[in-house]
Structures are given as C-alpha cells and as structure tokens.
C-alpha cells in the first residue's frame, strides 16, 4: 500500500460510519485483531482484513475504503462479531461502510440488478407460469407476486456518481 498522505485523510469519515445503522461500534476498537483471526476470507484474500479496514476507517482513509472492491468481500458469517471483546459488531460495521459506498455510487453491478428485480417483482426470481407449473407437478401451491407493494416500499434510486471519483466496479 502506498504511503498515507495526511492531507487526504477525512477526519469526519469515522463519524459518518458510526452514524450509519450498525456502524455505532467502530470507535470502540482497540486493535486486538481477534476479528481478523476469526475471518474466513482473510486467509484466502489478504486484501480483506477486518482490523486493517477498521484502522483505515478510523484514520479517515475514506477514498481508499469506499472505492475499494475488497469491502464487498465480507461473507457476512459473523465470525468477527462473535469474538470481538469490544462489541464493535464488525459485520454490521461492514454493512455501514458498504451503505456509505453505495451512497457514493461505488456499487458492484450485481447488487443494483438485484434491487431492480426486487422493486419490480418483490422477489429475487421472477415467477412465471413455468415455475408454477413445475411447482404444481410436485404438489406445491403457486407463488403469486405482489410487486405493487415493493414499488411503494422501495424508493427510486437517487444515487448519482460523484464525477470526481472512480471505482473499479464502474470501470469494469
């Protein structure tokens, strides 16, 4: 990793993370590394290191955190959260960080596609005649979409990409 340029740090970043739902525990971290030891991703992809992500967030390395693609590598297994002596609740902190990245329009394309499907159908898979025929054959009741509720429930996405900002996902 290149040297940290103090002028590029954002001292407000840690507060923004902590203000997100689930992000409250971030500032309680005392750096013991239990989270990293418990993480099943870290041995496979060294870029995903919970303690390092916490330090980066606390230091204010907003750009390096939000624009990275490694923040999307959390499998949400809750291993880190279970072992944390400070109750940082790092799995939830990761969701807070990813929510901020989404606000800055750094979103992997698969996730926006899932959201569009949900808004349109109320489910991850569209249910048509084919699916219900298959269900009927095995004696299962049909699945009926109630898509109209989801259009009301989920607002239109208003996130716009910050023009000064590049993300791996958007370039790919």
């Amino acid at each position, binding site marked *: 990793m290149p040297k940290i340029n103090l002028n590029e740090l954002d001292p407000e970043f840690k507060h923004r993370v902590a203000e997100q739902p689930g992000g409250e525990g971030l500032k309680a971290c005392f750096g013991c590394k239990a989270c990293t030891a418990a993480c099943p991703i870290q041995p496979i992809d060294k870029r995903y290191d919970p303690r390092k992500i916490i330090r980066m967030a606390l230091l204010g390395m907003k750009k390096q955190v939000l624009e990275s693609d490694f923040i999307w590598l959390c499998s949400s297994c809750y291993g880190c959260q279970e072992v944390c002596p400070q109750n940082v609740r790092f799995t939830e902190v990761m969701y807070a960080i990813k929510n901020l990245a989404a606000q800055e329009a750094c979103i992997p394309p698969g*996730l926006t596609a899932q959201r569009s499907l949900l808004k349109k159908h109320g489910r991850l898979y569209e249910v048509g005649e084919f699916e219900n025929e298959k269900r009927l054959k095995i004696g299962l009741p049909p699945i009926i979409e109630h898509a109209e*509720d989801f259009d009301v429930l989920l607002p239109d996405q208003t996130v716009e990409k910050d023009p000064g900002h590049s993300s791996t996902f958007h370039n790919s």
Partner: protein
Amino acid sequence: METLLYLGCTVPIRNLNYEVSARLTAKALGITFRDIEEFGCCGFPLKSLNVEDMMVTAARNLALAEREDLDICALCNACAGTLNEVAHQVRTNPEIREKINRRLKPLGLRLDGNVKVRNYMRLLWEEIGIEGIAKAVTRPLNGVTLAPHYGCHYLKPSELNVGFDSPEVPRTLSDLITATGAKVINYPSLLDCCGGGLLGMSEEVANAMAVRKLQEVSASGAHALVLVCPFCNVMYEGQQKKIAKSTGIDLKTPVVYYPQVLGLALGMTSEELGFKLNRIKPKELLEIVEG
C-alpha cells in the same frame, strides 16, 4: 401447532425438494403450515446497499404475520436471520420502530416486532423435540452416516439466538439427525462458512471457502452432507462440480436437506421427498434405506 411458512425467494423456485420435504414432514409431525401469498423477499439482498431498505422489506413480511397473529417458520437461514434481526430491532428500539412504521404506512401495515421467527429445524427442536421425533420414526436410518452443516446464520449472531444453540459447539442439527437413527460424523471444518454470500462478488474466493468442507466430508465416508439453507446449497451442491474441476480434487459428496432425511425416517419415499431434484444423487444412502 400452527405457524406461517415463509418460503423466501430461492427455495420455492430452486429448491423444491427442500420445500416439499419440509411440508410433508411438518404435516406428519402435527405442525400446520399456513401460507400467506403476500409474503415477498426477506430483505437480505438489500442490506449491503441500504440497511433501512432491508429493514422495511423484512418488516412488511413481519407485519403481515403479526396481522395473522401467528409466528413465522422459515426454511432459509438468511431469511430466518434477517426477519429475526428486524423483529428484534423493531421490538427493542422505538426510534427504528417509528421509522419503519412510517414507511409501512402506505401499505396499510403496522409492526410492533412481537412476531417470533424460527427456522424449521429450530421449530422441530423446540416444538416436537428430539424424543418426539425419535418416537415418530418408523424406519430408523440404521447404517447411514451423515455430516451436518449448520450454516452461519443458523447460529450467528448468537445474540439473536439466546437459549437455542452454541455458535462454537452446536448440537441441534446433529441431534436431529441422530433422532432419525443415522450416525453423525464430527469433522474439523464443521463450522466453515459456505462462502455463498460472496458468489456474486468473487466466485474464486467463494469456491475457495467451500472446498475444505467438501473434501473432508468426501473423505470421511459420510453418505451425504446435510444442509438447512439454500444459500449453502448453492455452494456445496451447485458449485461442487466446478470446484472439483478447478482444484483437481475428486469430489462426489451428495448433498441433502434435513427434512428429506427426516422424511425417509418417517417412512416417506424418496420420490415423495423430491430426491430426484438432488443434483448429486445420494445413491448409497437411498440403497441402504429403500433397498
């Protein structure tokens, strides 16, 4: 007892063997599953983008259940975990409760968060009990050896599962399997995460997470790996061929759902239990049970 069956998105489209075996075994054990056709996605896929969107999507289902004054039984670990988490938050945090209800209002729904959410295995464990299941068994699965896989969201976060099972030394699924007369193996990667949550982000990392368990179970001589979650199934059954190919490891681990195993022990046929939809056939297991 009566409960609402919550299917989620994946099970009723991709895992009909899980759904059909859950329905049949519940009926045989005196559990009445009621369907609500309005149930939709649990909200889990939205959590990375916006936690509040996830919460209102979950809350919609919970409010529908509260209106019926019935608990929820889910088949997917991610659904059960998400619905349970949101019920807990809405019940205990007035600020969140108000925020969520403001967004539910246009749908004519309201949520207090008192609805109880359990996955099917927890329901079996708590309502029927191991002894109750053992008593109902008409065809003990003698000679069958099985490897349990709990899945992360079955056990964690443990703060949402107080009084149920231990995230470090879990036993409920092993005991549920033992109640069918089958033998359970313990193995080092028992608690491994399947990696399913990552498949959409990095197939390479996800596959690397699944391989150890598949290899160990394959080498253990167990007749099948027993799952309770369709997300785990995507990795252990759906990805198994690809993983074998990319690693060069010879993997042929049949993957089954717990209610399928239970159904066999309750005397149901493999055909009724949807075994033809299992992609890696548990041939030896079925030969032992059905001859």
